[in-house]
Structures are given as C-alpha cells and as structure tokens.
C-alpha cells in the first residue's frame, strides 16, 4: 500500500475496499507527519539511537572486526580465527553438543508443554498446576543449575537421582550382603564371573565347610546366628557357610563358638560342570541338598553373592553430562512452553472440537486432527523461540558440569567464554569468531519469528 502525495491511499487490487477505507485516516495522518521537520524527529529518536548504538550496534560490529584479529588484537589475520574455530577439537565438541541440544531439547519441551497444557485443561485446580509447572522459570538459571548439580551427585546419600536409582534397582534385584567377601584361600577356586567352586568333590552324605573371610562380623545381615556344623546321620549333601574369624583363639577353616553363620547365600551343587541343585543358607549358615542322585559333586558359591552394591549412575561423568543438563533445561522450560500452548488451546473454538466429536471422532482423533492443526502456529513459535534459547545456553552447562566433564559438555556460548576469558588463554579474537558463529546460527530462527509476528500483525 502506497501513500500518494495528497494523502490518498492506493490499495493493491487484492486488498478489499473496506480495508482501504479503514486505512484512510491513517494515511491522512502520515501525510501530516511528513510536514514535521526531520531534525525534530531525530531529536526525539536520539536517546534510543544512542543507547542502541552504544550497547547493540557497536558491540556487534566490533565483535565482527575483532574476530579478524589475533589474540592481542594487533595483527589482522583475516578468517584464520574462523578456520581455527572449526578445526579446534573443543570448539567442535561444542558445535556437536549444540547440535544435540537443538535436535533434542526444543522438541521434548514442546511435546511436554503440549501434553501438560492439554492435561491441565481438563482438571480442577488447573491454575495451581500450571503455576507450579511455571515456577522453575522464576528461578535463575544459575540456581537451577546448582539444584540439578545436587540432584545428580553420584553418592546416593547426596544425589536424589542416584538415591532413586538405587532404591528402584534394589527393589528388583536384592542387594548382596557380602560385597568383597571371598572363600578362605585354598578352599576353592574362582571360576567364571567370580564364582567360587570347591576344589574337592563331595558325595551325598558329606559335610561341606565353606569358611568365608573378608568382612567384619558386625556387617553380617541381621539375624545371623551362631554357626553350627550340620550333624551326621543324614544322606544329603550338606554343610555350612560361616564367617571364619581366625583371630585370637580362632581356628581357620573350623567353626568356633563365637563365629556366626552367613545366611542368605546362594549355594549350588555342580556335577560335571552343570548346576544340578540350588539352595540358600539358613540363619546359622547351614545348607543342604536333600535329593541328589549318588555321584561326585562340587559345591559352588555364585559370584552374585559377593557382588558390589549398585551405587547408581555417574550422571555427571563425560558420557551422561549433556543429557543431564538437557533434563534440567527441560524442567525449566516446560512451564514456559505449556503457558504459551495453553493460551493457544484456549483460543480454539470449543464448537469445532464438539463438532468433531459429534462427527465421530475419538478424543485422540479430535486431538490429532483438530486441536493440533489449530495450535500448529503457536507450537511453531514456541519451538523456534526455544531453539533460539537453546543455542545460547551457557549457565546450566557452566554450573552443572563438574570441571572434569566440562569439556565433554561444552557448548558454543561456554566455549566462547572459555576461549576469551577462561582456561582457553584469553584469545578474544577466537572468542569473537565463535560469538559471530553463534550469532549467525541464531539469526535464521530470529528472522523466522520476526517475520511471523509481522504477518500476524497485518
């Protein structure tokens, strides 16, 4: 639409006439504006121009210039810094991690946001739920990072993630009570996965002694009672496993009065290399295989008896640190996505959903074929906004990743800072180059959003 000299409006042919009419008064106003002197307009714009110039335009331009100089800023190096940025392994790790972030995080957050927005729409206390979900947004990124660094501490006593992991693990696989315990030397050989197999063979009716060493008597499971040697007169292959203390007056390989049985151990009877019977020791450490066929057997204590307890995952190690930081970001941003998407949902005409239900749609079909297409534009804006946000991620990586795994968790923004001011050695030329790369990466997403907003305003 162009404004003629007389303040008339010339509508492009595809515009409707009433639109042109609506623009009439505005066009008249704009012609009046033309009569105000240019210097006056400039005067009013000056404060904003100065601020924008000093704090926005100048730093951007200077960064671009600086990126073409060496670390001292004295020698012009052309695009060398950019070349170095793409060959330097740590910058490449940062690029790779940024790519992972962009591919995973915004998608997950958008999906979660959609899920929560839809779910909270149909419950009572929806506002309360949404407020809780939105709250992480109110916490500074730095503080959130600290929270999650604590959550993912490796020691289950400190980190809630591992505490939960250990609890769940132990609920399914009972932890062994005898970590690191072994059969007294000479009583057996270690085969396979730390299984102890007796050297001698036994027949039904024999008594097998399994003296254990390598733990404190106080560490025995509660309920362990004094060890006894199973009596004679039985035809079963039987025996006892006990904690064999050889101190003071104790005798090795023999059951003394003070010694206690080792309950809960798995014991296997092995014939010709195959396990033929399995049993568990009682409170006094005794066990028995009553129904064995005549023949020669060895007795085996499977290594699982002595396995070290599950202590959770090394969350903050090099392998898992990036997913861990992404999980923290998801926790923070889901509330943001949900709030926007919920607003989009509220704008969907209720009738259209009801019509789809009457038309024969199941709730899922209604969601997929009506709800999602109708909030598509909102989802896109949220997604792009998240992409921009993700590319600039810095604080979380800086706070959550411990020094040892920071290199593996590196992202561009962090790398820029490291190179410019941190351990990287103060090369602000390279830092500026990385900054410019980051800027170029964000730019397309930014332009997309701006264009969208413009189109909506029209």
């Amino acid at each position, binding site marked *: 639409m162009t404004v003629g000299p007389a303040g008339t409006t010339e509508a492009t042919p595809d515009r409707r006439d009433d639109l042109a009419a609506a623009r009439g008064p505005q066009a008249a106003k704009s012609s009046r504006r033309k009569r105000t002197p240019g210097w006056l307009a400039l005067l009013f714009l000056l404060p904003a121009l100065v601020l924008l110039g000093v704090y926005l335009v100048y730093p951007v331009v200077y960064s671009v210039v600086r990126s073409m100089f060496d670390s001292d800023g004295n020698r012009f190096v052309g695009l060398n810094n950019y070349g170095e940025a793409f060959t330097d392994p740590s910058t490449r790790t940062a690029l790779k991690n940024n790519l992972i972030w962009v591919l995973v995080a915004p998608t997950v957050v958008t999906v979660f946001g959609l899920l929560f927005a839809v779910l909270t729409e149909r419950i009572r206390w929806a506002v309360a739920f949404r407020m809780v979900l939105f709250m992480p947004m109110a916490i500074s990124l730095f503080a959130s990072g600290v929270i999650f660094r604590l959550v993912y501490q490796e020691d289950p006593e400190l980190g809630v993630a591992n505490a939960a992991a250990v609890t769940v693990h132990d609920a399914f696989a009972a932890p062994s009570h005898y970590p690191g315990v072994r059969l007294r030397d000479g009583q057996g050989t270690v085969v396979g996965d730390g299984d102890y197999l007796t050297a001698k063979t036994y027949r039904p009716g024999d008594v097998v002694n399994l003296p254990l060493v390598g733990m404190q008597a106080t560490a025995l499971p509660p309920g362990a009672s004094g060890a006894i040697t199973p009596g004679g007169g039985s035809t079963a292959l039987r025996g006892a496993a006990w904690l064999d203390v050889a101190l003071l007056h104790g005798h090795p390989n023999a059951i003394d009065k003070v010694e206690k049985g080792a309950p809960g151990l798995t014991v296997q009877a092995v014939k010709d290399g195959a396990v033929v019977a399995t049993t568990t020791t009682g409170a006094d450490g005794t066990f028995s295989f009553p129904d064995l066929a005549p023949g020669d057997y060895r007795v085996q204590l499977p290594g699982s008896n002595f396995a070290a307890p599950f202590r959770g995952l090394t969350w903050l190690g090099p392998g898992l640190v990036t997913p861990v930081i992404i999980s923290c970001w998801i926790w923070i941003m889901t509330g943001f996505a949900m709030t926007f998407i919920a607003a989009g949902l509220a704008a969907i005409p209720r*009738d259209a959903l*009801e019509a789809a239900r009457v038309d024969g749609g199941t709730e899922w079909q209604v969601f997929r074929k009506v709800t999602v297409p109708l909030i598509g534009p909102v989802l896109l804006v949220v997604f792009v906004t998240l992409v921009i946000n993700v590319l600039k991620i810095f604080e979380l990586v800086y706070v959550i990743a411990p020094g040892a795994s920071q290199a593996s968790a590196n992202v561009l923004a962090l790398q820029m800072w490291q190179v410019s001011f941190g351990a990287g050695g103060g090369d602000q030329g390279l830092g500026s180059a990385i900054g410019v790369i980051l800027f170029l990466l964000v730019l397309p997403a930014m332009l997309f959003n701006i264009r969208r907003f413009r189109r909506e305003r029209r």
Partner: protein
Amino acid sequence: MSSVVLNDVSKTYADGTSAVKELNLEISDGEFLVLVGPSGCGKTTALRMIAGLEDISGGTISIGSRVVNDIPSRDRDVAMVFQSYALYPHLNVFDNIAFGLVLRKLSKAEITKRVTEVAKVLQLENHLKRKPRNLSGGQRQRVAMGRAIVRSPQVFLMDEPLSNLDAKLRVQMRAEIARIQRDLGVTTVYVTHDQTEAMTLGDRVVVMKRGLLQQAGGPQELYDRPRNLFVAGFVGSPGMNMVSGVLEHRDDDSWWVTLGSQALRVPESVLTERPALRGYAGRSLIVGIRPEDMEDAAILGAEEGQVLKSVADLVEAMGSDVLVHFPVDVPPVMTDDIKELADDDAVAGPNVLSGTEDTVLVGRFSPRTKVFEGQSISVRVDTARLHFFDPRTGSSLWDD
C-alpha cells in the same frame, strides 16, 4: 432414521442450577420437531444432551431402540449443526464436509462421490477448495449443513443454525432446510428462540420455559389453543395483547367481559368451546386478544359488544398491514410469565407499559385503513377468538 425418546430427562449442573426438568418427548421417525423458548429455557441443553455433548443428570434418552445415556457422542450416529457453524478453520470446504466420512474410514472414491453430491445439493461445488474464513455467512451455514447431511445420520440436531444470518438469508435458508429435511426424511430436532422459525419449520413445536415443557403441539394448535399465558405470549408476532378484565353474566343470559370502562360481549361459541369460563362469572381474569383479531371498525363495521374505542397512539405501516397502538384504561397485566417474555429481547412480547394505569394494545389492521396518529378510532374485535386465562395460575381456560 429413527425416533428419539426423552424420558424424564433432567439436567442439573455442578453448581446446582437445573437447566432441564423432567422433560418427556417422543419424536417420531422423520419428524421435524422444534424446541423453542426464550434464552436460558433449557432448549439448547436438551439438544446437547441428545447429541451427547452434555451428561444426562436424570432420565433416559433413546435413539431408535437404544438407550444412549452412556454412549459417547461419536457412536450415537447423530449430526449437529451449530449456531456458530463450528467449521474446522484449517480445512477447506471439501475436507470439512468429508471429515466425518474420513473418520469412518470410507474409501476415497466413496467420500468424493458423497461430498460432491452434497455440494451439488447445497450449491457449494465452486467453493470446495476454499477455507471457511473466505466464505460468506450463508456459505458457511451451507457447509455446516453439508457436513451433517453427508453422513446420512439417524438424527439431525440443529442449534439455532440461522441466527447468525441476516434477515433475508435467514428466510431463504429456512426454506432450504425445510426442503432438505423433507427430501431426506431424517428425524430432526431444531432449537431456536425465534417463534417464526419454529412455526414455519416444525411439524411439531415444543415451547419451553426455565427447563420446563410448556406445551407441545402443531404450530396451529399452539397459536389457536395456547395452554397458558407464556405460550400465548410467545407464539405470534406481534405478541398477544393481555389485559385484565372481569367476566359478567348479565340478566339477559349474555356474557360480557369488562375491560376498564368498556365491555366486549363473549359469544356463545366461546362459552361452548370453553366450558370452564362459566365458573368465572363475576371474577376477574386475563383476556388475550391477538393483533390479527382486531380490525378498523370503519372498514368492517361492527355489532354491539365487538368494539373498543380509543385514540391511535402510534401507527406503523408495514405495507402488507398496519400496526396500530392504542391505549385502553385497564391496568397492565404483570405476571411472571409476561415479565419473562418482556425481558427477552428476541421475543416480540406483549406491550408492557409499566407505571401507568393504561395498557397499550396493538392491532393489526388492513392496509386500507385510514387511521392516523392521534385520531379517535373504533376497533372491531373478533370476539369469537378471545383468549381467557386464570390470573393466578396463568393457565388458559378451556374445560375443567
């Protein structure tokens, strides 16, 4: 196609408000039933319960031989036309109409065939590729109709489908809906607050007020034999004039109803038709006179006891007839029903002038009348068509 039966259907919302109270209706196969009433009377709620969009608090609804109380909307095989049309904004006209068929996983060829057929009937063939936002109101309305028709459902449910159209289009679409319904013979429940729509479309009209059924019957029956003040005032446009009068049984065995300083003679035919009237001798009651039953006495002439004399207060020439407003010296009738009708903007209720001792009556005169404002007039009343209501209960006086 099937019948729809509502048995003691009630709707109570979580906050305790009761929208529909023990509604009993039998809608036979192929019938066009109109639910009509002022806003908030529960007609839309009743419709939405049939559609399955609203839980049923009490009673049962059956479609065909199935009780559908616990059957979700999608399996009830009903099609609904919404007041807002509720088109899917992201789909073009073709896909809007085809939506229900796609969900039913019909073959592409079958869908195209049925949609094209329907589009032809509704004259939408040239618009199939357009999005709803690029359509005019009338076209949107037709798409909404098409979406309902294409599925050949058991029952059509229409929730004020014409109220967003301008007056001319409304009349046109009204005729179209009537024609389509007649051709397809699908059982239809139609909700409106417009009594003209109700009267013109319905095989049977159900008048509701505050969740209660007031009267159900053919349009002419509602007009001729309204069961109470509410129905009488609701049906007809302009609405029935209501004045309080006193019934007199004179010595010569003639019956008269006194309206202020004037009196009308109640003919024998009315007394035979309404035996209950005899019990009201000497008592006050509410007299209803339809505007159509009044005429300029100068044109028709009048006998004694058929004339009301007054001064023309306002004359509205409609072309086809002339509406003349004139006062009579009777205090206005103010019952709850009439207040409710007066509060509802959409209804052409009776004239109520509060705070005066006069009631303004409206007469519909022939256009040949030469009455002008301020002129003294004699109005001939067709006394055989007078209506009488009990002032306390508001119910019409027929037989005991």
